[in-house]
């Protein structure tokens, strides 16, 4: 039973609730900025746990990790220490969609992060369930005072960061069997929701799921396609030396479902809690259960199944592509129809999990609750999904909790600056009805937001916040300078239509020159690379590969990049027009009803954000602009 009375009271700066990927980043950021921080977890063994897929990164998620690293987060460094296979995805496509993905040794990942936390100055780890927030009612808002644990201990603090993941009132479903636990049978957190509701916070219920794990010894890999890692491994972190991580990699395996698999699923749909209507939470469309795939895409003869190791020191294998909430017997029968899995033994069953989270429109883009001073949140609690999405939010929430306490300017990334900006803006501006996952198509300025230039984009911000050292920052400045200088040199280096140049072009299957040109122009040709051009560029000085990469991208895709930059300028204009929080939309005449209601419930911080809320038309934005001008002039008048 919850202990109501206790004499234990401790004073700290920040309380971070939850030690998953979001919580770890938030706590580390606060502690590294010198604030006395406590991180709470229901179980020390669940720090940085990877309860679902055994990998970090992937399309657009890899971008998030690199951005987080550029800002001073830990995830990139941690995966560089604990990966067992690495791949750059989409390498045949444009540089903007290249994305890193690494298979993690889950246990190592978790252990390594725990070590970082344990040795971080100003940070203490506490195994306890936070049951209540303590707050004070101010005139027009609430102010956070601290947290109370299950044992009744009170931690007074200036800021709280909620990163409760999937633990709030968690319920796991495996066929007809229901357990009231968090992931992996861990203790659920059953009290905090009520405390949040009593503060007036709007809660919702989401659902997600994970496939089964199998015993490696029961799988016949000879019937599957082996999938190797990249020959040359690129690290996630800008601080990791690539030469130090060229390890021996393990393989993953690919196999497929077939007609028989689908048959078994279809015949047992009535036993799936989702199809039987037992699950009420909203599940994510991007990681459909195998039941969903078979029902929704009934014309597909087969679905891919990826068999991935969970680590070096375990025989458990993750079965990607076949998450399910069907009962145990059906699961086994269905898995055993897949080539290579005929004799498979399940170590852990697939299951679906339901949990409480918030409607993130209650948050500012700084990830602070709009009406609660000192309360921040990140991760699945905010209605997202995925380790990387969680970590990115955790970092921003942590940074801003720290900025608030230190009285410094908060950090907000906009859509033109980072995928993290897109992620957070989508969460706080759009109506999300399922756990939100990052996708490259969500980033409208993605040609600028590449994984290769995350350091150039964000190191400065990390430095300003205080998580990036002067040394690291100057390294980036130096890199920038060298890139610009080299681009200019290529533009200035004239290439005449002389015989040797024509011969060079002919040899490289490139059109001959009619008039003189420069090296940059030649580099724009798809068939010519920076490397090939070396021959006719005698003045070239050897440059590091990361600089050459930037030079090449900037020149080759100049037209596209410039076009996006112009769009960004337009975009920024509206982002800069701020809306005062106390603006009463009922005072704005001529707004359409729908727009008025939406604006009232979202309380956007800028006209730009307002324009992205569905149901707010361009005409409403014009009206709002005029009103804001009137508001400004009135205030100026009153001031005089």
């Amino acid at each position: 039973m919850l202990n109501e009375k206790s004499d234990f009271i401790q004073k700290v700066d920040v309380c971070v609730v939850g030690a998953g990927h979001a919580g770890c980043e938030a706590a580390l950021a606060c502690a590294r900025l010198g604030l006395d921080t406590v991180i709470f977890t229901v179980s020390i063994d669940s720090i940085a746990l990877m309860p679902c897929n055994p990998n970090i990164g992937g399309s657009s998620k890899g971008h998030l990790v690199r951005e987080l690293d550029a800002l001073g987060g830990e995830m990139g460094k941690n995966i560089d220490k604990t990966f067992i296979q690495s791949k750059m995805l989409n390498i045949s496509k444009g540089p903007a969609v290249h994305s890193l993905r690494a298979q993690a040794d889950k246990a190592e990942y978790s252990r390594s992060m725990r070590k970082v936390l344990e040795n971080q100055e100003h940070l203490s780890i506490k195994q306890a369930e936070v049951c209540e927030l303590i707050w004070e009612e101010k005139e027009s808002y609430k102010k956070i005072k601290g947290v109370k644990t299950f044992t009744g201990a009170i931690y007074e603090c200036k800021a709280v960061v909620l990163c409760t993941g999937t633990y709030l009132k968690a319920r796991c479903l495996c066929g007809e069997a229901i357990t009231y636990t968090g992931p992996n049978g861990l203790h659920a957190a059953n009290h905090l929701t009520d405390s949040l509701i009593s503060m007036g916070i709007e809660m919702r219920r989401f659902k997600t799921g994970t496939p089964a794990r199998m015993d490696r010894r029961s799988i016949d890999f000879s019937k599957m396609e082996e999938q190797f890692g990249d020959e040359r491994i690129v690290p996630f972190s800008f601080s990791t030396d690539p030469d130090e991580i060229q390890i021996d990699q393990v393989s993953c395996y690919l196999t497929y479902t077939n007609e028989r698999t689908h048959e078994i699923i279809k015949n047992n749909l009535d036993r799936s809690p989702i199809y039987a209507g037992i699950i009420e939470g909203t599940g994510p469309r991007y990681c459909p259960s195998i039941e969903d795939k078979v029902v929704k895409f009934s014309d597909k003869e087969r679905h891919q199944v990826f068999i991935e190791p969970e680590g070096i020191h375990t025989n458990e294998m993750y079965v990607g592509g076949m998450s399910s909430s069907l009962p145990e017997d059906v699961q086994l029968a269905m898995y055993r129809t897949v080539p290579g899995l005929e004799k498979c033994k399940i170590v852990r069953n697939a299951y679906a999990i339901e949990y409480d989270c918030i409607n993130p429109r209650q948050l500012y883009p700084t990830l602070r609750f709009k009406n609660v001073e000192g309360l921040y949140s990140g991760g699945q609690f905010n209605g997202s999904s995925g380790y990387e999405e969680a970590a990115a939010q955790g970092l921003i929430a942590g940074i801003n909790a720290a900025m608030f306490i230190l009285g410094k300017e908060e950090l907000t990334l906009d859509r033109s600056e980072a995928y993290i900006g897109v992620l957070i803006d989508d969460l706080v501006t759009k109506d999300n009805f399922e756990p939100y996952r990052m996708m490259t198509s969500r980033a409208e300025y993605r040609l600028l937001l590449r994984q290769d230039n995350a350091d150039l984009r964000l190191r400065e911000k990390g430095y300003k916040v205080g998580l990036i050292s002067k040394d690291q920052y100057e390294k980036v400045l130096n890199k920038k300078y060298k890139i610009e200088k080299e681009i200019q040199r290529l533009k200035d280096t004239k290439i005449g239509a002389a015989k040797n140049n024509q011969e060079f072009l002919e040899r490289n299957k490139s059109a001959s020159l009619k008039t003189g040109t420069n090296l940059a122009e030649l580099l724009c040709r798809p068939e010519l690379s920076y490397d090939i051009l070396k021959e006719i560029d005698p003045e070239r000085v050897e440059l590091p590969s990361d600089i050459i990469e930037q030079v090449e991208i900037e020149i080759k895709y100049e037209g596209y990049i410039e076009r996006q930059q112009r769009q960004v300028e337009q975009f920024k204009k509206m982002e800069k027009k701020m809306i005062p929080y106390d603006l009463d939309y009922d005072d704005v005449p001529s707004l359409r009803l729908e727009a008025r209601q939406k604006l009232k419930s979202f309380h956007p911080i800028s006209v730009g954000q307002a324009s992205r809320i569905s149901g707010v038309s361009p005409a409403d934005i014009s009206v709002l602009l005029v009103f804001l001008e009137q508001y400004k002039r009135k205030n100026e008048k009153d001031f005089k």
Partner: protein
Amino acid sequence: MKTDTIAAIATAMSHSGIGIIRVSGEESINIVDSIYVNRNHQKSLKNFMTNTIHYGFICDGEDVLDEVMVSVMKRPNSFTTEDTVEINCHGGILVMNRILELVIKSGARLAEPGEFTKRAFLNGRIDLSEAEAVMDIISSKNDTALKSSVKQLRGSVYHKIKELRELIIYDIAFIESALDDPEHISLEGYPEKLGIKISDLIHDVDNLLLSSENGKIITEGINTVIVGKPNAGKSSLLNILAGEERAIVTDIAGTTRDILEENIILQGINLHIIDTAGIRLTEDVIEKIGVEKAKKYSQDADLIIYVIDSSVPLDENDYDIMKMIQDKKSIVLFNKSDLISKVSLEDLRNLLDKDVIIVKTSTKENTGIENFEAAIKSLFFKGEIYSDDEVMITNLRHKEALKETLESLKLVEKSLEAGMPEDFYSIDLMNAYSSLGKIIGEEVSDDLVNEIFSKFCMGK
């Protein structure tokens, strides 16, 4: 790249008098300069003093469009406080429209409704006390423009654009799902296939642009919808109205199989008539569907003609229709007056708004039609119904959007030719998709993500 210089016709669109085209913004003087010629071909607007007016011609290349007076107002001496040029031309919708189009071609963009006033206010030209009026103008003008924009679009064009958008979003979704999940979805050999689709799309948009040049993508006249139960005589009415003695302006083949649109000039008044006929009615359920359809069209109608079969008692469907036409301008035809009446005129009168005109007709015997025409005429001359004179502007807006679409598609084509990776041109495809959306008044919002998840199987 368009500048933020805006242009619009500042006077009422009418056939008489003088019309003014206003251009405001940083580039306004340069833009008009490029199409303005004065007698000695020497002077340039740039060199004129502010607040002066000058005689000359507006030329599209060699082609002289009109003899005009051009006034130049340099900032801050104008309504918007920006550089402003006003072209005073001879009225006439056609001429004004051509000049406006030329101004836009030369680099201005079509002003949003109320935008001059908005700029004047934001630039401090209009007093604080007038702010509310400004907001009112913006919202009401946009509201009208938005409504008329979709309303004036021909049904067939509307459907064509919907179809094109569906094709485009499918391909974007395919590319994007492959980028997001490269291990599940492959793009091998895809660019070639897309190349063929893009040239088809370009062809289709080109055709739409051509029709917009001829004003064929929009409807003109008063939007009139005929509603009523089956067998009430709706089709006969349309046949009578469209009879040989009357001018049929256009005849568009069924946009969907059950909708017929005709332009009819009645007593000199241009009516765009939509008949909701052709629904086969055997059971009550289907009858309800018919009413639903009619409802949809009626929402946007300027005028509703409700045909009642007076030879059968009023039923559920009639009450439904009456509810639907409550706030609309409508004329009720008490039809089949040649048969024994099962509907009391008295009851009917009580059921309807008091100012609704009821006309007794028999479409079979062709009686009462003159009274019906007179009723329309009186509504028109009392100004209770009118055709929208913004129609040309709507057309221009649509044309702009079609041109943007075309530009984006051509960029896709160019990227395909240059062998650029898919992630580059999918952005231009998205632009084409949203430009087309402007025409039918649809936002992009979450279309792409929805399409990705509904059409392609991805994920762990």
